[in-house]
C-alpha cells in the first residue's frame, strides 16, 4: 500500500517536473527572441535586412555594423561612433554607483547602529527621494548645476545620480543593517574601534549581498537613464543612452538597422554584465557564523 502510493507520488512528481521545465523553457524563449533578433541582425549586411529576412540567420556574417556603430557612425557633428559616449557613461556610472553605495551604507549604519533623536523621521524623509518623479527636480537641478558651474558635464551627471541614488541605497542598507547583530558593534566598541573603523572593518566586509544588490540596482538605473542625460549633458558629454537615440534618430536616407541593432546591444551590454558578475552574491549568505543559528 505504502509502496504503491510512494510510486504514484514519484511519477506524479516527474510529470509535474516535465511540465515545469517546458513552461520555463517557453518563457525563456519568449524573453530571448528579441535579443536573438538583435544579435542576428547586427551581424548581417543591410541588404539582407531590407530583403525582408528579419528572423533568418545571416547568409553572409559580418562585423561591419559593430565596427561602424562603435567607431565611425555619425552621432554628433563628427563621425565618432558610440565609443566616446560609452566612455562618458562609464565615467558617469562608476563613480555615481560607488559614491551613492558608500553614502547609502554610511546612512544605513548611522540610522541603525547610532541611534539619535529623529532618526526615523530622517529615514522617512530620505525615502521620499525614492518616490519623487524625475521631472519635478529637472528645473531646480539645472539651477543648482548652473550655480556649481558643472552644467553639461559628466561631473554634473554624477552629482545628479548620487543625489537621486542615496534614497534607494539608504533604504537597502538600513534594512540590511537593522537585522545586523548590534552586539558585533558593541564588541568592536569595547575592542576600541572607532566609528569609521567599525564601518570599514566590521560592517562593510559583512555587507557583500546588499552591496551587490545596491550596485546592480544603481548601475542599471544610472546607465539606463535618459532624461537626466538628455537634460543636463547634451553634446560631447552625453551618455550612451542619449547617443544611441541620436544615432537612431539622426541618420538620414537609408536607415542602417544593422548598425542600430549593434549600437543597442552595446548600450545594453554593461548592465547585463554587471548582473552576471554580481548576481551570484545575491544569494550568498556572508553572515553565517557571527551569531548562533
Amino acid at each position, binding site marked *: 500500500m505504502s509502496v504503491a502510493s510512494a510510486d504514484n507520488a514519484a511519477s506524479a512528481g516527474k510529470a509535474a517536473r516535465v511540465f515545469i521545465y517546458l513552461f520555463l523553457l517557453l518563457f525563456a524563449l519568449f524573453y530571448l527572441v528579441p535579443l536573438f533578433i538583435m544579435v542576428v541582425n547586427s551581424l548581417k549586411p543591410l541588404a539582407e535586412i531590407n530583403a525582408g529576412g528579419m528572423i533568418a540567420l545571416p547568409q553572409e556574417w559580418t562585423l561591419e555594423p559593430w565596427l561602424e556603430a562603435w567607431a565611425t557612425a555619425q552621432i554628433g557633428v563628427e563621425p565618432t561612433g558610440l565609443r566616446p559616449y560609452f566612455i562618458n557613461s562609464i565615467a558617469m556610472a562608476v563613480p555615481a554607483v560607488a559614491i551613492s553605495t558608500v553614502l547609502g551604507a554610511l546612512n544605513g549604519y548611522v540610522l541603525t547602529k547610532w541611534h539619535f533623536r529623529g532618526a526615523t523621521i530622517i529615514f522617512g524623509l530620505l525615502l521620499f527621494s525614492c518616490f519623487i518623479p524625475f521631472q519635478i527636480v529637472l528645473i531646480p537641478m539645472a539651477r543648482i548645476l548652473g550655480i556649481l558651474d558643472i552644467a553639461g558635464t559628466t561631473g554634473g551627471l554624477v552629482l545628479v545620480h548620487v543625489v537621486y541614488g542615496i534614497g534607494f541605497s539608504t533604504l537597502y542598507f538600513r534594512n540590511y543593517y537593522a537585522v545586523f547583530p548590534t*552586539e558585533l558593534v558593541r*564588541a568592536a566598541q569595547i*575592542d576600541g574601534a572607532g566609528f569609521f573603523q567599525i564601518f570599514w572593518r566590521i560592517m562593510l566586509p559583512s555587507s557583500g549581498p546588499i552591496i551587490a544588490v545596491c550596485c546592480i540596482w544603481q548601475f542599471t538605473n544610472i546607465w539606463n537613464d535618459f532624461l537626466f542625460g538628455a537634460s543636463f549633458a547634451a553634446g560631447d558629454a552625453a551618455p550612451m543612452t542619449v547617443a544611441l537615440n541620436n544615432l537612431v534618430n539622426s541618420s538620414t536616407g537609408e536607415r542602417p538597422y544593422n548598425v542600430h541593432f549593434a549600437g543597442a546591444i552595446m548600450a545594453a551590454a554593461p548592465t547585463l554584465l554587471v548582473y552576471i558578475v554580481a548576481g551570484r552574491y545575491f544569494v550568498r549568505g556572508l553572515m553565517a557564523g557571527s551569531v548562533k543559528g
Partner: protein
Amino acid sequence: MGFLDIDNVTKSYGAVEVLHRVDIDVQEGEFLVLVGPSGCGKSTLLNMIAGLEDITSGEIKIKDRVMNGVHPSKRNIAMVFQSYALYPNMTVGQNITFGLEMHGTPKAERDKAMTEVAELLQIENLLTRKPGQLSGGQRQRVAMGRALVRDPDVFLFDEPLSNLDAKLRVDMRTEIKKLHQKLGTTIVYVTHDQIEAMTLSTRIAVMYNGYVQQLGTPKEIYDTPSNIFVATFMGSPAMNVLPAKLVELNGAMHVELAAEDGAKHLRIENAPAMYKSYIGKEIRFGIRPEAITDPEGADRNATNIQMLSNTVGVTEPAGADTFVTMSLAGQDCVARMRADADVHAGAAFEFAVNMDKAVLFDPESEARIA
C-alpha cells in the same frame, strides 16, 4: 573602596526608572554574579559597567577611576556576549587580536598574546578558521579568548552559556570557574540561571524589578534569603513557602501548619528575638526540600529535627534523589529524599523536618523575619 565600585547607580529611560539605587562593591579577584529573571535590570547594569549605556545617576568606578562618560574601550574591560559576537569576516586569530590592533599593539606582541591565549583555551588549531566554521562551544572559547587577550581589569560576561546545549553548558561552566581560579581575575557575570550563579560566584546579587534584592555569598543567599522572592528564585526545586502561624505551646515557639487531619506543630529552637513579636500572627514558613527527609536520611549534625506525619502525595524518583510531594497547609510541599527511601504514594509517612534550616517571612512585606 572596592576594585569595582557601583555607587548608588540608577538608570532611567525617560520618566521610567528601570534600575534603582544599586550599590555594590566588588573586590579584586571576586566573581560577582548578577542573577534574576528577564527584565530585572541585570543586563542593563552590566552594559552600564561596560559603558554601552549611560548612567542616569550615581557613579561607577574601576580602580578608583570614575567611569561615567568614559568610552568602553578606555575602561580596560572586556566583555563576552551572549551571541558571542564574533566578527564573521575575520579568522579566529584576527578576532582575538582585533582589540589589541585597535589599541595599537605591535604585531609581534599581538601574535605572542594570541598564541598564549590560544594555548590556554586549547584553540590553537582553530586560529585560521572563520567563526562560521566553528561549533557553539568553539565559538564560546574564541569569544573568551578575545576577552582574555586584552588582560583587562574587569571581565564582563553577559549570559555567555545560554546558547549552548545542556551538557556543554555544564562543561564550560566548570571551565570558566577553573579559569577564574587560575587567573584570579575580577569578573561580573550576568545570568538568569540560578545554578550557574550558585556554582560560579564568590558573591551573588539577586535582582528583581530593578532592585538588588540581596547581595551575599552563595551560602548566605541560599540559607538566609532576605525575602520570599530570593528564597523561591534560588534553588531547584524551589523552597517551600507555606502559610502558617507562629504559636507558643508549653513555653516553646512552634510553627502551626493547617492540614486535613488537624493542625501540625513544628518546634523552633534558638529563635531570634524578632520572632516574639509575631507570636499569634500569620507568617510564611520557608523550608527547603532537602530539609524534609525520611528519618534515616536526616542531617546528623542538625540540632532540631521535628517529625511530621503526613500522607505521601506523589513520588518522583530522579536517580540520585527521590522527590516526594505532599499536601501541607493547602499547598504542595516538596521533600527531597535519598533514592532508596521507602516511600509510597498514598501511604502515611513520618517526615523528618530539619528546623535548623527553617526561615520565616513576614506575609505583608515578604521579608525574612530575623
